[in-house]
């Protein structure tokens, strides 16, 4: 990779971040036009982009960002008043930036004609009163505490090797009783975690000094991790928010400059955390190698060498492999915020286009998911949210008629539940018209009339995920572009996830997506079917049991068992795997091993020949020739080097 390429990669990565930052902040600016902090971040982002573009020699981009920066400066100085027109103009500017960057990425040039737009910007800027902008240094509105050079020196002398310096900002809930007393608890907790260098208010004065804006700032030297400190402080009652940043002490300069300039530099470096950008492909490769390692470990285990040393080294190897796997998984994780962040802008634009009022609320942006899942999830999420705006939320007048608030709400939330990540899209709009769905399903012959009669409400709703049901006849500008809910479902299924839907007329619709935390390595139960070994992923199993023939009951001609008053259908795994033998042989056995597997709310009892053991398996996908084998989701290599197929429980159930 040449030097220039390296710069380019970094340029693209950083440009993407800045564009995101601009988008976010313009959205915020629209809500709080007076917020100086927002304007300052906007200005800084435009400024940084300008610098980067100029360095790379992208002249159009430089000019564009320069004009935008000018405009933001005028806004900051109050010469331009923020209104919808300005916001739209800023958004348009960012779109242009994005387009140019995309163009550069594609073919290296930036021949996009933005003269018209630049003139528009120019006009706004010159309309603003020709007051000379004040020559003042940009300053973030919410500063952390600054350290004097004496204090820095002091930290240097006392800090142990593993200690880190943290800037901690704590926000108390508005309704907190005895705020100063709460603050003293925070101080106490902090001093148990490390050493408080400085705080605001001062620790000694906490009984006398009222808190400003419910905020407490602490600079703490501690050997604990950021997460541990966060958890410890959050555990105190009435804490609304804890922000922790690592502070890098400035390099010790020769000549021992002790002017105030030094401490100013420090404030800036609060923002910097040390990260490395790594190509996702390298991580994939690493993950693959760990998979291989694991397979070899399993094989080694199977060799069962009779030696004391072997017995000792095996658990060690086991632990290291798992740690390694865990660490790489960790590295591959990214907060879903990287995907969520583009949605507020999208919803805003759509809502404006359609004359709808929408409050878009996002929760759990910090929830982490595997990077590859996040990448795949972008489109389905976009689709669901577009649907929520387009079909879900009604126009204000219609909402008022229904006695609802004229402003609709769309909630997007993410959270972890056990070994799954749940993402929900919820709107309080008109809900899904089940009759229409059923009608469409009948016309498209997805189901028969008889089948419909057997279905309950919930099952009818699921028809929405069938091909051809959700796509609109007349293609609207927003959703219904031929990509239907079936594609959404398929994408999510390909990530080993599931999607559920709930909807009530005039109350709204909720989509719930559940995704596995990890993809590559899983715990599995190994079972024997017709003398072959198969793996069943543990997260799909609710229990295993052995039953006697007489426990099998019949319902509508099918075998079932009754387990804790629940009727569970039995499925012969030989039959679902299409093994060439007589089915139903299990009835001759004394004891029948059964694996109860779940898919969504559905549970079935899978009859196998033998329950073997539990094992970590590395999931390998089947090659293209063997794509879409029913009931099989992949393969893995077991101890003796044999290949075992992985049962696709969702398919079977």
């Amino acid at each position, binding site marked *: 990779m040449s030097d220039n390429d390296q710069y380019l990669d970094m340029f693209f990565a950083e440009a993407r971040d800045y564009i995101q930052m601009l988008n976010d902040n313009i959205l915020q600016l629209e809500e709080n036009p007076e917020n100086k902090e927002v304007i300052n971040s906007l200005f800084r982002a435009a400024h940084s982009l300008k610098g980067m573009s100029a360095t790379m020699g992208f002249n159009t981009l430089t000019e564009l960002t320069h004009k935008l920066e000018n405009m933001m400066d005028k806004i900051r100085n109050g010469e331009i008043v923020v209104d919808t027109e300005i916001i739209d103009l800023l958004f348009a500017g960012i779109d242009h930036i994005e387009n140019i960057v995309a163009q550069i990425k594609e073919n290296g040039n930036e021949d996009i004609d933005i003269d018209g737009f630049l003139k528009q910007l120019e006009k706004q800027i010159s309309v603003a009163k020709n007051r000379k902008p004040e020559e003042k240094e940009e300053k973030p509105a919410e500063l952390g505490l600054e350290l004097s050079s004496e204090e820095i020196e002091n930290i240097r002398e006392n800090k142990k090797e593993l200690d880190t310096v943290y800037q901690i900002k704590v926000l108390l809930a508005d309704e907190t009783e*005895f705020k100063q*007393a709460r603050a003293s608890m925070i101080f106490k907790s902090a001093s148990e975690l490390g050493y408080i260098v400085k705080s605001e208010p001062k620790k000694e004065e*906490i*009984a006398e000094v009222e808190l400003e804006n419910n905020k407490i700032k602490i600079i703490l030297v501690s050997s604990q991790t950021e997460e541990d400190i966060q958890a410890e402080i959050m555990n105190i009652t009435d804490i609304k928010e804890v922000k922790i940043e690592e502070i890098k002490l400035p390099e010790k300069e020769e000549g021992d400059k002790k002017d105030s300039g030094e401490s100013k530099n420090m404030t800036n470096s609060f923002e910097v955390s040390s990260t490395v950008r790594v190509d996702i492909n390298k991580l994939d490769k690493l993950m693959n190698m760990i998979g291989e390692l694991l397979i070899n470990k399993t094989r080694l285990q199977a060799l069962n060498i009779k030696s004391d040393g072997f017995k000792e080294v095996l658990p060690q190897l086991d632990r290291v492999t798992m740690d390694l796997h865990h660490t790489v998984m960790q590295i591959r994780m990214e907060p879903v915020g990287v995907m969520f962040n583009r949605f507020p802008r999208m919803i805003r634009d759509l809502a404006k286009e359609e004359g709808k009022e929408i409050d878009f609320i996002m929760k759990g942006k910090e929830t982490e998911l595997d990077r590859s899942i996040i990448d795949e999830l972008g489109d389905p999420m976009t689709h669901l949210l577009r649907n929520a705006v387009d079909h879900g939320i009604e126009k204000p007048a219609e909402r008022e008629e229904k006695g609802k608030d004229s402003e609709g709400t769309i909630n997007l939330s993410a959270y972890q539940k056990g070994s799954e990540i749940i993402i929900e899209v919820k709107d309080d709009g008109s809900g899904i018209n089940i009759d229409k769905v059923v009608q469409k399903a009948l016309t498209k012959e997805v189901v028969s009339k008889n089948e419909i009669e057997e279905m309950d409400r919930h099952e009818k709703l699921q028809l929405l995920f069938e091909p051809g049901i959700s796509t609109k006849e007349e293609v609207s500008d927003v959703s219904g572009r031929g990509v239907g809910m079936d594609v959404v479902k398929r994408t999510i299924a390909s990530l080993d996830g599931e999607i559920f839907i709930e909807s009530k007329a005039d109350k709204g619709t909720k989509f719930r997506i559940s995704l596995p935390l990890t993809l590559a390595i899983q715990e599995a139960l190994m079972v024997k079917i017709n003398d072959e070994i198969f793996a069943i992923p543990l997260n799909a199993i609710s229990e295993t049991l052995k039953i006697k023939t007489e426990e099998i009951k019949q319902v509508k001609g099918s075998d079932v068992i009754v387990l804790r008053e629940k009727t569970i259908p039995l499925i012969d795994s030989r039959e679902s795997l299409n093994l060439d033998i007589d089915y139903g042989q299990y009835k001759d056995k004394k004891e029948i091993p059964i694996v109860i597997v779940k898919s969504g709310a559905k549970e079935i009892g899978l009859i196998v020949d033998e329950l073997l053991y539990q094992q970590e398996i590395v999931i390998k996908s089947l090659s293209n020739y063997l794509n879409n084998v029913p009931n099989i989701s992949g393969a893995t290599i077991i101890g003796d080097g044999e290949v075992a197929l992985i049962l696709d429980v969702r398919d079977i159930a």
Partner: protein
Amino acid sequence: MINLSNILVVDDAAFMRLNLKNILGEFGHEVVGEAENGKQAVEKYRDLEPDLVTLDITMPEMDGIEAAAKLKEIDKDVKMIMCSAMGQQAMVIKAIEAGAKDFIVKPFNKDRIKEAIEKALA
């Protein structure tokens, strides 16, 4: 989930003790002893070795702050929650410095008490 625990309730007002005892009972905790002042609290703490002490602040003989400090001397792991009232913020701060885990403010709110106790015992 949190373990149910043995609690010593210290307050000079019998009414408040009963009030607290009922609330704590609702959450499944057992009030193993009651004390009317700091002195009694220290004695009973030695006898009963409770998991947690709720300490009123204003009490005759020995107040809650002094009691908190004494209890901390006897048992450095003692878990104390201060029961304070309007205007006692400065005292609460002293008590926290003396080693109290948390505080609740009268009139008592059940959820607050539950939260404070769960956190103190965690």
